[in-house]
């Protein structure tokens, strides 16, 4: 297969970026999108040119490193998939493919298609955990959790932190990311003591990072490789309302 690639090139965070066009040929339909970029880069290196920088690591869709905005969609034309699990057989032979970095103010470009997503970690730092020290836990079966609840918590806990929700959202909102963690912990008995603080602090940080607001368009859930459902956002909203607008029963 052959493709014309229109790729965003940007030397570093300060430099202005621009699109450059490359041709690639002889690509197997079973190659992944990243392997196609590998082929391009091998050639660029041999030609003495600067290869295209892009993030990647596990290449099996779980580490959340890769993230390209391909033909107008986060992680490319298929829903609920990472870039590394996107195969060239899903593109039309001979077509032009536009590749851009994930764009959001809190995701500054580092180089070419690589962006800094540490803002997501800072949201987690504000409360995406249960404060328990190693060694202080009771027996694991001391806290029975109904299977449906555990299953739902799991659905929310599978977020891979790739940032596709932000990239796909017209407002560059990190709601699905934040909501997934809030919802995961809010459902579990272990998460109860810090429930109110968690949602307050995480939302506050989400805003401080400069992410946009959520307008419930649902684009995030369509692109989310972990298939986090929109009900996570409803759960966050509920947690938020409860934390701010109802009296805290535990306060003196």
């Amino acid at each position, binding site marked *: 297969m052959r493709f014309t690639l229109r790729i965003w090139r940007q030397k570093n965070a300060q430099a202005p970026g621009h*699109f450059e066009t490359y041709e690639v040929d002889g690509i197997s339909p079973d190659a992944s999108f990243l392997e196609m970029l590998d082929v391009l880069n091998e050639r660029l290196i041999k030609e003495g040119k600067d290869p295209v920088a892009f993030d990647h690591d596990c290449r099996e869709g779980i580490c959340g490193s890769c993230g390209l*905005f391909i*033909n*107008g*969609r986060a992680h490319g*034309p298929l*829903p609920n998939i990472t870039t590394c699990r996107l195969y060239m057989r899903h593109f039309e032979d001979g077509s032009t493919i*536009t590749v*851009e970095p994930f*764009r*959001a*103010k*809190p995701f500054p470009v580092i180089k070419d298609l690589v962006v800094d997503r540490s803002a997501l970690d800072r949201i987690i730092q504000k*409360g995406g955990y249960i*404060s328990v020290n190693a060694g202080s836990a009771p027996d694991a079966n001391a806290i029975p959790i109904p299977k449906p609840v555990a299953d739902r918590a799991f659905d929310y806990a599978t977020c891979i932190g790739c940032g596709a929700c932000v990239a*796909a959202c*017209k*407002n*560059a*909102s990190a*709601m699905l990311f934040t909501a997934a963690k809030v919802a995961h912990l809010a459902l579990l008995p272990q998460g109860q003591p*810090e429930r109110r*603080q*968690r949602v*307050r*602090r995480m*939302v*506050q940080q*989400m*805003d401080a990072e*400069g*992410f*946009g*607001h*959520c*307008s*419930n*368009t*649902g*684009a995030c859930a*369509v*692109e989310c490789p972990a298939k986090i*459902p*929109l*009900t996570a*956002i*409803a*759960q*966050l*909203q*509920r*947690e*938020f*309302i409860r934390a*701010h*607008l109802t009296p805290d029963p535990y306060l003196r």
Partner: protein
Amino acid sequence: MEAVSPSATSWLHTSVGRKVVMAATGIFLMSFLVVHLAGNLLLLRSDGGAAFNAYAEFMSTNPLIRVLEILLFLGFVLHIYQGLYFIFRERAARPIRYSLNRAEANTNIFSRTMRLSAIVVLVFLIVHLRHFFVEHRLLGSPYTMYELCVAAFENPYYSAFYVLSMVFLAFHLAHGFYSSFQTLGLILNRRIERAVRWAGAAFAFVIPLGFAIIPLYFLLRTL
């Protein structure tokens, strides 16, 4: 986790809090639409406008309604203010836009056109208020409310504008209805989501249609 002690209104300044305001005012405004439509349908009674005028008289003099009217006005202002704020915030959150963005692949047309539909509905609201509210209540028009309505609706331009605006209102409601319930944290599973989406579609279809029938009725009567 260290406790943050928020002031009573700090939540209003968070993006999620603003969203809650948007949703709460949205639901309030939707409930107003229902009441408004119920009243308007009196126009269709063939009693020469007696029922409608009585209703208009009640609405403009009853003290409880007057209080609600102020609330309604506040609701509109807040809803519009938050909307404007979100536009500003959205710009700030993505200073460099995508060169190619296929939003149609992951969103529906109603949510993508919220801003456009908001602007049209806002323009409609201003014209609408000027025509009826300002004319009748502030300028003390000599005509009855019924007469004002009939005059307006028999004007094909005004009616066309009215009907078109209702289409945009339908768009706005098609996303707004679902969105409000989502924002209030009520859609916790797929079953509820399906129900709310269905109800939202019905609401967005029925209410604007109900409004649009009235000018069409008067317009067709002139033919």
